[in-house]
């Protein structure tokens, strides 16, 4: 196609000069809209990641079996309610953990189910379950584990449990008992893992007392204590965050952001992740208590939730060696 007329001039030039340049966009307003669109994009990505993660924990039986298992769980709960005190509520499940009262058949556990003294819980290789104990503790049962819940103790038959009292004096003391010894604590977060030959206690916060017959020992925050069946004790330092605690964080009940301030969210997050929280200035800490959050972090990992929330607030942060530092408000891009 020719682009020139007989005068040697490109005829399109005339109409483009008539039309002029397309209306430009005000950069400041575009920036504000870009930020909001970026947040929505990040939220969509987070939802996708959460969905992909959820798919790993597929329900074993499909819709009908799932519905049936809920019905069985409800029947199980109502039957035992009249016999023993309620000791825990299921707050989160991964996969198909099962529970059953003493002498009753096991049934799939669902969030909201109430458990009574003597209830036995079991998890398979991809399962996990989080409970809120009546005494105030958060109890999480790892994959491939089995426990019995009593009013004042958790009987660990296999696998591992995590207990979090929420801080010193906040929960009624509870003991973890196993064939290789017992663990008693006050105001702490810890994992008790029952292996074939040893009882391993990893302490994230506070201290725990471990006993096997006449042998007693104390394990403190940042320490792994291994008590073998001959009564020998080994200790080693551990990090209070990272891979060892990953399954605990994955089972953490997620709070609604509605009604939470940024400071409250950060305190919850660092406690669940085993991180330390620092603000670059006292003023930032004061400001964080005044920032109201909205939306949901359902299904997100701790780091994803952090990224999403901080993006929405426009605050900068860095996470290094288990310390989360809140720096300042984000600078505007040039």
């Amino acid at each position, binding site marked *: 196609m020719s682009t020139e007329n007989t005068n040697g001039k490109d005829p399109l030039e005339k109409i483009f000069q008539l*039309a002029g340049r397309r209306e430009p*966009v005000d950069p400041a307003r575009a920036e504000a809209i870009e930020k909001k669109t970026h947040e929505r994009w990040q939220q969509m990505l987070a939802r996708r990641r959460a969905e992909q993660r959820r798919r790993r924990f597929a329900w074993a039986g499909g819709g009908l079996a799932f519905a049936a298992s809920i019905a069985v769980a409800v029947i199980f709960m109502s039957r035992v309610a009249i016999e023993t005190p309620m000791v825990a509520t299921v707050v989160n499940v991964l996969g198909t953990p099962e529970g059953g009262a003493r002498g009753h058949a096991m049934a799939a556990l669902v969030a909201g189910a109430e458990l009574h003294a003597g209830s036995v819980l079991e998890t398979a290789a991809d399962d996990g379950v989080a409970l809120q104990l009546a005494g105030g503790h958060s109890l999480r049962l790892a994959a491939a584990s089995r426990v019995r819940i009593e009013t004042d103790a958790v009987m660990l038959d296999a696998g591992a449990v995590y207990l979090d009292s929420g801080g010193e004096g906040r929960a009624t003391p509870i003991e973890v008992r196993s064939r290789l010894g017992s663990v008693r604590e006050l105001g702490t977060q810890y994992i008790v893992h029952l292996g074939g030959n040893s009882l391993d206690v990893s302490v994230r916060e506070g201290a725990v007392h471990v006993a096997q017959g006449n042998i007693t020992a104390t394990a403190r925050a940042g320490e792994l204590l291994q008590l073998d069946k001959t009564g020998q004790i080994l200790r080693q330092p551990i990090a209070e965050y990272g891979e060892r605690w990953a399954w605990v964080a994955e089972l953490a009940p997620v709070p609604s952001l509605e009604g939470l301030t940024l400071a409250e969210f950060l305190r919850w997050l660092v406690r669940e992740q085993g991180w330390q929280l620092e603000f670059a200035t006292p003023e930032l800490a004061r400001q964080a208590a005044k920032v109201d959050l909205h939306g949901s972090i359902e299904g997100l990992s701790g780091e994803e939730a952090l990224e999403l929330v901080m993006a929405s607030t426009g605050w900068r942060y860095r996470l290094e060696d288990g310390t989360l530092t809140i720096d300042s408000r984000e600078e505007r891009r040039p």
Partner: protein
Amino acid sequence: METFETHSDKRLVERMLAGDNAAFRSFFATYFPRLLRFALYRLHGDDTLAEDVAQSALGKAMDKLDTYRGEAALYSWLCTFCRHEIGAALKRTHREPVDLIDDLPMIRATLESLVDPGAAPDRDAGRSELARLIQVTMDSLPPVYADALEWKYIDGLSVAEIGNRLGRGHKAAESLLNRARESFRDGFSTLTGAGLDLILDQ
């Protein structure tokens, strides 16, 4: 049918779904101004409302980004969200919709006025409407075509300079400009139902 444009749109969306921040920035820089103008023309020039609508449309598009299959151009796909938001905004503000495609009689009058500059009393209004339609056509083109046409005909850049901006050689830039011109003519004819011949013959 997948075209070169929808293929590159699809690739852009795939990169965004993989969390590529550079892809997001490219997406926003390319499509936000076009969507804003798209809304502005249909909202009686109310720029505040148009910004709200464009932002809302982009937010919803982000929510549904993984449903984009590349069957239509990304801009057309985004416009479906924008149209929905425009409809809601017009209803909310009790305004009449702006029908842009049924303006053919006006376009014809405009073209006639351009043929005989002294003959039409509504010449300025007609020119303004024609200018808007030219810009709408530009926004409907693949972004690189629209940019190349603006650089050529408004900024007065040479083919070599356009090639430099695009990172292409002289011949490739010339070929791209030719494709841009053809797309513009086709787009304008599709939009208005009229060709550019009357103007181009002047």
